[in-house]
């Protein structure tokens, strides 16, 4: 496909996840992150396109047959699932209707197949019988198998810089984002969302560049457009000219070289110049991310979000499923701390239980510990799984959204109940697990001295704390820029929580996004923060920052910071004092001492 003159349109957004990607745009509708190439075919190519589809189906049938043959004797009776899939492959509704579409609409096989599958899905979604509804999964599996075999024979697309695409969406829900297949997506951009939205958090955990809050990107970009996205600067270039592509390519290489350099020093301890050790931990969402946490030099897991297993399944996960995934993390971390946060989810997100009506304002609604107190069955199942997994490592329990003492007392009572029933069942579990709370509701900040008496540690969840304290929705692009971690009020709150923790002799950590900017390190350390927990890729940079400063110097610097009245003033002195250091860090390797 030849382009007319390049347009080089620049769109400004919010950097959601660092890195640069250059590739073709692929437009997705909300809730539909399936990536399929769509193009029209010339009338003369219809026959060969149909042949391509037939071949892919034949290949898929052979694959399934091979899988069935390879099954050991004792599983033979389960082949009916594969048998059903084999039938679906040949089913008229899929096979013949796809061929008819290729011929009639003159579109490529992938597109035609997707349309046929969508049709079937549409009909199936209206049927209530669960055993029929479940068949949709088989249909999806079968169509994915065909798609895989189609792409294996894909013709070279001249205009493709890279076969993987850049997703363009109005918004991506966390569930959408977790569906992203990394081998097909090299980055994504959205109209909505900010730096701390879940979409950004997931992009960072997937380590792919993302630009969010672009407002009208979906109106200005079409599938197939060439895009350059810069997740560090929060910038998108649509239809770039050759010169820009070349420049961004070398910038991409520089960024990747820098990342590699940072990673090499990631296993050095996070010790300040004057010998103070800070624990730098990882925030994870899925058990698989543990590997990334270790690779990036994490001293442990400071926040293990547990919502994933509840979002990705129909129905609730069983105690056994939860236990297995928690145990896996505990075992891989080999005695290093693993802080498991209990369910921090809104009633609107969980399962298909419609008992709780949709809320107007879920951020202030029935979520996290409040939800768990209403649905004690769900809470108990999770607590039991955590207590059992705690036998396999240094597992701690962390309760989110605590607003006052009553919730801690109630949660502890439930924990005692769970311990008693595990005892009765004779199951192995850890009785004296460390219990901490997230400090993220302003009332908990005010009560920090009281709450500190009842728990083993604090973890300040700055994302929510900032949102609740400054009264802004971090997902609302109109106020996203008011989300300021260095707001004087926020700094005072963090400082007072740290003081309360120290007075009670308990540890305090920060597990919000605030912990992963090197600019915040010289402010947080002298406040008496013991641990910083962040997305794994930020760990090496933060460790380097810690190694580059002296805690003693930071103490006097903090005094200056606390005298400032606006974010601007604070940013200025941080920039003045540490800007050069951070700049240098970003471009030079200080050498391994």
């Amino acid at each position, binding site marked *: 496909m030849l382009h007319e003159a390049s347009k080089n349109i620049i769109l400004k957004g919010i950097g959601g996840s660092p890195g640069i990607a250059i590739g073709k745009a692929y437009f997705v509708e909300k809730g539909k992150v399936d990536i399929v190439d769509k193009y029209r075919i010339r009338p003369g190519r219809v026959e060969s396109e149909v042949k391509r589809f037939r071949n892919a189906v034949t290949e898929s049938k052979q694959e399934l047959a091979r899988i069935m043959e390879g099954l050991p004797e004792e599983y033979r009776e389960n082949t*009916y699932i594969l*048998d*059903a899939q084999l*039938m*679906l492959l040949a*089913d*008229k*509704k*899929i096979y013949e209707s796809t061929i008819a579409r290729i011929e009639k609409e003159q579109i490529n096989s992938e597109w035609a197949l997707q349309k046929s599958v969508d049709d*079937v899905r549409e*009909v*199936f979604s209206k*049927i209530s*019988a669960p*055993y*029929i509804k479940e*068949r949709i999964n*088989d*249909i999806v599996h079968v169509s994915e198998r065909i798609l895989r075999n189609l792409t294996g024979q894909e013709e070279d697309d001249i205009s493709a810089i890279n076969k993987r695409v850049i997703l363009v969406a109005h918004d991506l829900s966390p569930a959408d984002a977790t569906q992203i297949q990394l081998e097909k997506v090299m980055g994504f951009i959205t109209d909505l969302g900010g730096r701390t939205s879940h979409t950004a958090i997931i992009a960072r955990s997937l380590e792919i560049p993302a630009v969010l809050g672009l407002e009208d990107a979906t109106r200005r970009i079409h599938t197939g457009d060439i895009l350059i996205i810069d997740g560090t600067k929060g910038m998108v270039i649509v239809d770039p000219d050759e010169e820009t592509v070349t420049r961004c390519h070398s910038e991409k290489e520089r960024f990747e070289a820098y990342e590699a350099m940072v990673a090499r020093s990631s296993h050095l301890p996070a010790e300040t110049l004057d010998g103070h050790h800070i624990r730098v931990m990882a925030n994870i969402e899925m058990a698989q991310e543990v590997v990334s946490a270790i690779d990036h030099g994490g001293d442990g897991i400071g926040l293990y979000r547990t919502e994933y297993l509840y979002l990705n399944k129909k129905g609730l996960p069983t105690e056994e499923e939860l236990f297995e995934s928690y145990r896996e993390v505990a075992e891989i971390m080999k005695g290093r701390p693993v802080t498991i946060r209990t369910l921090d989810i809104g009633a609107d997100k969980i399962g298909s239980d419609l008992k709780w009506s949709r809320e107007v304002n879920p951020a202030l609604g029935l979520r996290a510990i409040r939800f768990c107190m209403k649905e004690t069955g769900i809470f108990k199942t999770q607590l039991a799984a955590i207590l059992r997994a705690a036998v396999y490592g240094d597992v701690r329990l962390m309760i989110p959204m605590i607003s006052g003492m009553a919730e801690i007392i109630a949660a502890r009572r439930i924990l005692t109940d769970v311990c008693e029933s595990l005892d009765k069942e004779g199951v192995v579990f850890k009785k004296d697990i460390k219990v901490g709370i997230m400090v993220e509701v302003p009332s908990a900040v005010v009560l920090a001295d009281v709450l500190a008496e009842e728990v083993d540690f604090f973890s300040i969840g700055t994302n929510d704390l900032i949102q609740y304290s400054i009264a802004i929705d971090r997902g609302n692009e109109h106020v996203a820029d008011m989300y300021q971690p260095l707001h004087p009020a926020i700094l005072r709150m963090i400082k007072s929580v740290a003081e309360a923790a120290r007075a009670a002799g308990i540890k305090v950590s920060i597990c919000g996004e605030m912990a992963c900017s090197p600019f915040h390190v010289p402010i947080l350390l002298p406040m008496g923060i013991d641990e910083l927990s962040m997305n794994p890729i930020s760990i090496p940079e933060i460790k380097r920052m810690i190694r580059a400063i002296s805690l003693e110097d930071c103490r006097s610097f903090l005094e200056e910071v606390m005298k400032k009245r606006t974010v601007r003033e604070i940013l200025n002195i941080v920039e003045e004092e540490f800007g050069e250091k951070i700049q240098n860090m970003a471009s030079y390797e200080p050498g391994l001492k």
Partner: protein
Amino acid sequence: MKKSNNNVQADLTRSMTIDNQLGMHARAAARIVRLAEKAKGQVFIEKDGISVDAGSVLDILTLNCPMGCTVTVRAAMAEDKDVVESIERLIKNKFGEPE
């Protein structure tokens, strides 16, 4: 097997109830399709006035036939009487499923 050529219509249309516990699920539907594929003309399954292609698992599934419902098997061509009867046997045998 008794043959009667004086009432073609009745021979090509058979109604029966679905007696197996799981209803007409995917595996059951697949077995019907295998039989229907042997027909020379089209074979249909009907329920509540809706008629679908017995040669498509997906079509049969969309008919949504749980245990206890009544379905009608119908063939378009007289030669396919055997096919209709074999489908009838299959359904009456509860698809060979154990209770």
